[in-house]
C-alpha cells in the first residue's frame, strides 16, 4: 500500500467570486500527524471539507490512499469507511446518548453486528478516549466541553479508521484539558497507527504532537515541513505566527 495517505494536486475552491484556494498542492504521509495552520479565513476548514468530499472543488485532484475522491457515485464510500472526523464542538447528535452516538457509524457500516457486540465495541472506544463508563448513557448536553470532544473522538474512531481529521480539537478547552487531549491524540495515533490531519490555532498542540506543519495562506500551501524548518520560512505571516509572544511562550514550554 502507498506511503502517501492524502495527495492533493492543483486544488481550486471558489465561493462565488471569492477564490479560497488556487493551485493548492499537499501530501500527507502515512502515519504522521500533520498540523495545518493559517490565519482566519484562509480556508483550512474548506480544505478539510474538500478532502472529505463534503464540498466539491472547482478543480484539482484529491486522492486518499490511492482512492480518488470526486463526484463519481461511490468514490467516497471507501473514504467514509476508513476515515473519522472530529468537528469543532464534537457535532454529537444531541438527541442520542454518548453510547448511541458512537454506535451510529457501526450501525451504518456493519448492520449485521449483534446488539451486544456493537455495544461492547462502542464502550471500548469510549474507554479508549479516556471517558468512564458512567459517561456512556449521558446526553451530550450533560457533558462538559472537554468530555464532548472526547466523545466526538470516540465516534470518529468507531470504525477503526486509518485517517483522522480534527478541526481545532483543543479550541475552547482549558490549558490542562487541552494538554491532556493532545497527549491522548499522540498516544492513540501511535497505538492505532493513525494518520492525522489536524487543523489548529493552538501553538502548544503544534509544538507537542505534530510531526509536520503545513501553513496555508494566499490560497495555497505556503510551506510544509518539520516545525524547525517552517519556523524559519521567510514570509511575514509565518514569522509573525511563529515568533510572536505566544509562540515564544509555547516553545519555552516544550524545550
Amino acid at each position, binding site marked *: 500500500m502507498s506511503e502517501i495517505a492524502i495527495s492533493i494536486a492543483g486544488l481550486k475552491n471558489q465561493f462565488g467570486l471569492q477564490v479560497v484556494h488556487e493551485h493548492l498542492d499537499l501530501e500527507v504521509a502515512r502515519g504522521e500527524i500533520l498540523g495545518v495552520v493559517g490565519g482566519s479565513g484562509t480556508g483550512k476548514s474548506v480544505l478539510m471539507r474538500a478532502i472529505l468530499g463534503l464540498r466539491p472543488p472547482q478543480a484539482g485532484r484529491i486522492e486518499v490512499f490511492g482512492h480518488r475522491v470526486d463526484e463519481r457515485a461511490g468514490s467516497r464510500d471507501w473514504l467514509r469507511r476508513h476515515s473519522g472526523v472530529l468537528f469543532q464542538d464534537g457535532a454529537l447528535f444531541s*438527541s442520542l446518548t454518548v453510547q448511541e452516538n458512537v454506535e451510529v457509524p457501526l450501525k451504518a457500516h*456493519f448492520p*449485521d453486528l449483534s446488539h451486544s457486540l456493537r455495544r461492547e*465495541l462502542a464502550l471500548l472506544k469510549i474507554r*479508549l478516549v479516556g471517558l468512564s463508563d458512567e459517561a456512556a448513557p449521558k*446526553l451530550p448536553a450533560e457533558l462538559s466541553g472537554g468530555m464532548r470532544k472526547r466523545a466526538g473522538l470516540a465516534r470518529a474512531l468507531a*470504525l477503526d479508521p486509518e485517517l483522522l481529521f480534527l478541526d481545532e480539537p483543543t479550541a475552547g478547552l482549558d490549558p490542562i484539558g487541552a494538554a491532556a487531549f493532545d497527549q491522548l491524540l499522540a498516544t492513540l495515533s501511535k497505538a492505532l497507527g493513525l494518520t492525522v490531519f489536524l487543523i489548529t490555532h493552538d501553538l502548544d498542540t503544534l509544538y507537542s504532537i505534530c510531526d509536520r506543519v503545513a501553513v496555508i495562506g494566499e490560497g495555497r500551501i505556503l510551506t510544509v515541513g518539520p516545525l524547525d524548518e517552517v519556523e524559519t520560512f521567510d514570509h511575514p505571516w509565518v514569522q509573525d505566527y511563529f515568533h510572536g509572544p505566544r509562540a515564544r511562550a509555547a516553545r519555552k514550554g516544550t524545550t
Partner: protein
Amino acid sequence: MPETPVIETDSEHPGCVRLSGDWIVDRIADLQARVDQLRGPVEALDARGIERIDAAGAWLLVRLAQRLEMDVSAIELEGEHRALVDTVARAEQHEQVGDTVREPGWRRFFGAIGKLITDGGSHFVKLSGFLGLSLAALVRIAPRPRQWPVTATIHHMQQTGLNALPLVALLSFLVGAVVAFLGATVLRDFGAELFVVDLITFAFLREFGVLLTAILLAGRTASAFTAQIGTMKSREEIDAIRTLGLDPVVLLVLPRLVALLIMLPVLAVAAMVAGMLGGLTVSVTSLGIPAELFLSRVEETITLRHYLVGLIKAPLFAMVIALVGCLEGFKVAGTAQSVGERTTSAVVQCISLVIIIDALAALFFMEIGW
C-alpha cells in the same frame, strides 16, 4: 482483500493456539463467534501470524486472554501490534459498571401516570407564576414610557396579527359557509330556512369567531413564540440579556403579550365578519334568501350582548397563547430536540386550554342567562 482470520491449535503442542489473518472490525462478528468456540486448556496464544489488527480485533484478543485467565503480556505478538493491544488492555481495565436494573413494566406504567399528574400540577404553578411575573413587569415599566419595547411590539403585531389576517378570514368564511349548509339541511324540513341567519349570527358572534381565531393563533403564533425564545435560550442569548442588566420578560414576553392582546380581538372581529359573509354567500346563492332579507334578519336578532359575550373571551385567549408560548420557550434546555418538544407542547396546551376556557365560558353565560 482482507485475509480470513484463522484460529488453530498447534498439532505439535496441543496447548498452544495459533492466531493469524486479519483481525479487523470488518470481520468482527465472524471472529467473535470463533473466539467463543475456542475451548479446552490453552497454555499459550501465538498471535505472531496476525497480519493486520485494529482496536476491535485487539479487544477480542484481550477478551480471549481474560477468559483464558492469561496475562495480556503473555500473548506472543509482532512488535508493531504490541502498543495497540496494550492500549486496549489498559482501557478495558477500567471497572465495569453493572447494567442498571430496569423497573418492572407495571411500576413504570404507574410511575408514568404519577409523573404526568405531578408535572401537570407543577406546570400550572409555573404558568401562574409566569403570569404574575409578566404582570409585575408590565406594572413596573408602565409609568416609564421610555422603556416600552414599542418597536418589538409593533413588529409582533404585524407578525401575529396582520400577516395572519388572510388565513383567519379565509378559514372563517369557509366555516361560515359550511355552517349555513348544515343548518339549511336540518331547518328545510321545518320550512324554517330563514333561521339559518340566526344560527350563523349566534354561532359566529358568540363562539366561532373568537374560537377559530384563537385556535389558529395557537397553532401559528404560540409555536413561533416557543421556537423563537427556545432558540435564543439554547444559544445562551437569554443569559446574555440578563448579564447586560436587561429583563428578558420585558424584552421578550411583554411585546408578544401586548401584541396578541391588541391583535387577537381585531382578528376575532374580522373572523366574525368573514364567517357571516360566508353564510350570506351560501344563503344568497343556494338557499334562496335574498341579501336584503338576510341583513334585516341579522339586524332584528343581533344585540350588542352577543357580540360582547364573544369578544370578552378574546383577551383571555390572547393571554393563554402568549404566556404558554413564551413559557415553553424559556423551558427549552439546550438541544434542538428540546426546541421541537417544547413547541409541540406549547401548541397542544394552547389549543386545549382555549377550548376548555371557551366551554367554561359558554356554561357561565348560559347560567347567567346572557
